[in-house]
């Protein structure tokens, strides 16, 4: 019931504040979509614009999927000759896309979290020319960090779309912090202080069972990009095409991570991971069993909806591992892209273009609650009145002093998987960090050569 109430109150709130903005956006956009459509009509000419079908695949189901469907419907309202066929592909969206592409039957558009893996293998259409001639898309309106997700080899291959704020914040269970007598005005700014906090928060019984985990370090490592920004060293340089896993910074990162494994024993950390599977946030944290953990902008909403009612959570920057006293912030997003092989590239671009408008993002948000991180859209929302703590993820974009996006790495999926496994192996003490990083560096470099050769 509580869920219902919250959803209702959020909706009511939107109706009040959102209305004016929506109308403003709608009027602003109506002419904007027109010139592009005009081009098409001029080209196709008299026969009343022939009907075009576009397949568009995204990851989300449920409420998130409804938001996508609503956004597509809105697009068709503006462009009656284009029928959208939105489809939820779930967690296997990449797999489904690859299989369809290989079989010669790709969708027109797909929404993933970065472009480089497909762009690097010739599966996407570059959109720089479209962006340049567009009167709708304004690159200035995107967060610079989000734009990194569409890059590969000096060109842009899509646009940030549908969802994206910050993907790295340190969440603390305020109830536990207060019980432990910690000063929430002096949050940890380096990893030593983080250890002190973890020590004060953790609770281990006489049998060695972890009743409260002080700091769940794994969250930082959700993506290697998180460590990139924390350590101030990009794991992959998209301009020189070089990996930096063999750097001191990443060796240091693994040591930091291991030091948190060692606090309670690697097996306990691994068990938390196993217990988390299929869930967005550590389930024990929902039950109040983790003091500190990290998560993206979806965490506040998820906690508000799923955690015990009496629990409160606060959010802050993750410590700077580079010792420069900066506030590191990883800003990920989703990106929509056009597949090479689409029979209606112009129409697909029209949709892509439309995703940049406040009107579209407002509609998606109204239905699904997904927040797109374009500057104008964030400004139109009153973050502080949404889920408690969500505002950290928007202010983080402006107040973070080292705000980076995702690496434009064509082997990002491989790097992600392998680095995560390596982190665990180091945590268990079965692999030497230096040696593991060296192997990872070589493996990725080999794979990169294949991409660059082709």
């Amino acid at each position, binding site marked *: 019931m509580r869920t219902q109430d919250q959803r209702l109150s959020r909706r009511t709130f939107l109706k009040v504040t959102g209305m004016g903005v929506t109308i403003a956006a709608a009027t602003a956009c109506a002419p904007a979509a027109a010139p592009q459509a005009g081009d098409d009509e001029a080209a196709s000419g008299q026969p009343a614009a022939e009907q075009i079908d576009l397949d568009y695949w995204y990851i989300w189901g449920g409420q998130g999927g409804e938001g996508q469907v609503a956004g597509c419907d809105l697009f068709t309202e503006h462009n009656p000759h284009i029928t959208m066929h939105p489809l939820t592909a779930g967690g*296997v969206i*990449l*797999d489904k896309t*690859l*299989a369809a*592409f*290989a079989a010669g039957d790709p969708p027109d558009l797909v929404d993933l979290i970065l472009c480089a*893996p*497909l762009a690097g*293998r*010739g*599966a996407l259409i570059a959109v720089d020319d479209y962006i340049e001639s567009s009167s709708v898309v304004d690159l200035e309106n995107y967060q610079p960090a989000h734009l990194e997700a569409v890059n590969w080899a000096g060109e842009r291959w899509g646009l940030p779309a549908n969802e994206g704020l910050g993907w790295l914040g340190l969440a603390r269970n305020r109830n536990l912090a207060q019980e432990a007598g910690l000063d929430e005005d002096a949050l940890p700014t380096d990893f030593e202080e983080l250890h002190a906090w973890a020590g004060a928060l953790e609770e281990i019984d006489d*049998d060695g*069972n*972890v*009743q409260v985990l002080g700091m769940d370090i794994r969250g930082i490592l959700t993506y290697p990009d998180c460590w990139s920004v924390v350590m101030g060293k990009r794991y992959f340089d998209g301009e020189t095409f070089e990996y930096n896993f063999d750097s001191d910074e990443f060796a240091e990162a693994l040591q930091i991570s291991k030091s948190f494994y060692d606090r309670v024993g*690697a*097996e*306990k*950390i*691994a*068990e*938390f*991971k*196993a*217990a988390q*599977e*299929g869930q967005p946030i550590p389930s024990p944290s929902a039950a109040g069993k983790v003091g500190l953990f990290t998560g993206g902008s979806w965490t506040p909403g998820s906690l508000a909806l799923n955690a015990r009612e009496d629990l409160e959570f606060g959010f802050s920057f993750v410590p700077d591992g580079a010792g420069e006293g900066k506030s590191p912030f990883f800003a990920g997003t989703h990106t929509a892209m056009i597949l090479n092989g689409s029979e209606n590239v112009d129409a697909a671009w029209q949709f892509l273009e439309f995703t940049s408008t406040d009107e579209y993002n407002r509609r998606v948000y109204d239905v699904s609650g997904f927040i797109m991180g374009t500057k104008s859209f964030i400004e139109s929302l009153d973050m502080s009145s949404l889920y408690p703590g969500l505002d950290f993820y928007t202010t983080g974009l402006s107040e973070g002093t080292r705000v980076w996006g995702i690496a434009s790495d064509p*082997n990002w*999926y*491989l790097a992600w*998987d392998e680095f995560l*496994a390596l982190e*665990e*192996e180091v945590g*268990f003490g*079965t692999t030497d960090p230096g040696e593991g990083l060296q192997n990872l560096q070589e493996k990725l470099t080999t*794979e990169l050569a*294949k991409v660059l050769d*082709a």
Partner: protein
Amino acid sequence: MLAFISPWILGFLGFFVYPLLLSLYYSFTEYNLLQPPKFVGLTNYVNLTEDSHYLNAVGNTLYFVVFSVPLGVLTAFIIAFLLNQQLRLRVLLRMIFYIPIVVPISATAILWMWIFNSNWGLLNNLLALIGIQGPSWLGSPTWSKPSLVIMQLWLVGGSVLIFLAALQDVPRALYDAAMVDGANAVRRVWHVTIPMVTPAILFSLLTGLIAAFQTFANAWIMTGGGPIRSTEFYVLYLYENGFRFFRMGYASSMAWILFGAVVVVTVILFRTSARWVYYGGEG
């Protein structure tokens, strides 16, 4: 005979020959699914011998096969045997044993994580009753595979039904004859029941083996292959290479090695089966 098996022959020619040959070809190429495959000869096969993650996955899979298959067949047989007694409620009981297969794996997986949780999980609470401090099941590289084997035992409902169907077919006259000869219950099971269900045992063993070599969903959903790759099974690693890491050629060479290995195991099992499987139809 050809007329009877023609549906399968059509299906085989239509949907298997071409995919099989194509995947064999892919295994000699570098293929990322997005660009045309590039012929590289035996490179993939050679690289596999040096890939420590691959060899680790082979070991994990062999472990899983060796423990889960025989134990699974045994468990299924015992349950079917019990169900075949004239128990009251047996209709309900049959359904209950089948239910774990019907319940979606997402629900099953969450439940088992709770059962295996070392702090407050069901299993360790039960063990504590008899004074044993249970391990951290899914968190420990030593216990993660046994955990998945235990869970597999609980998904034997399909084999139970097959054994039940087989037990239904055991002629009652055989038991009567054995009784007249003065055989006790254990001897009747050993000399009548088991020989009569050997075709079902062979079926369960073989399909169990083939499925266990390809085990995927349990690790995919529950452990993601961890901790420290202790549950990274063969097909999980293959799948990730093919559809996540853009190495379909490499994945195809893995598939063909697996294919070869399973064929060898199956041939051996079939050859030996002549000695212990009893078919009424050939008698």
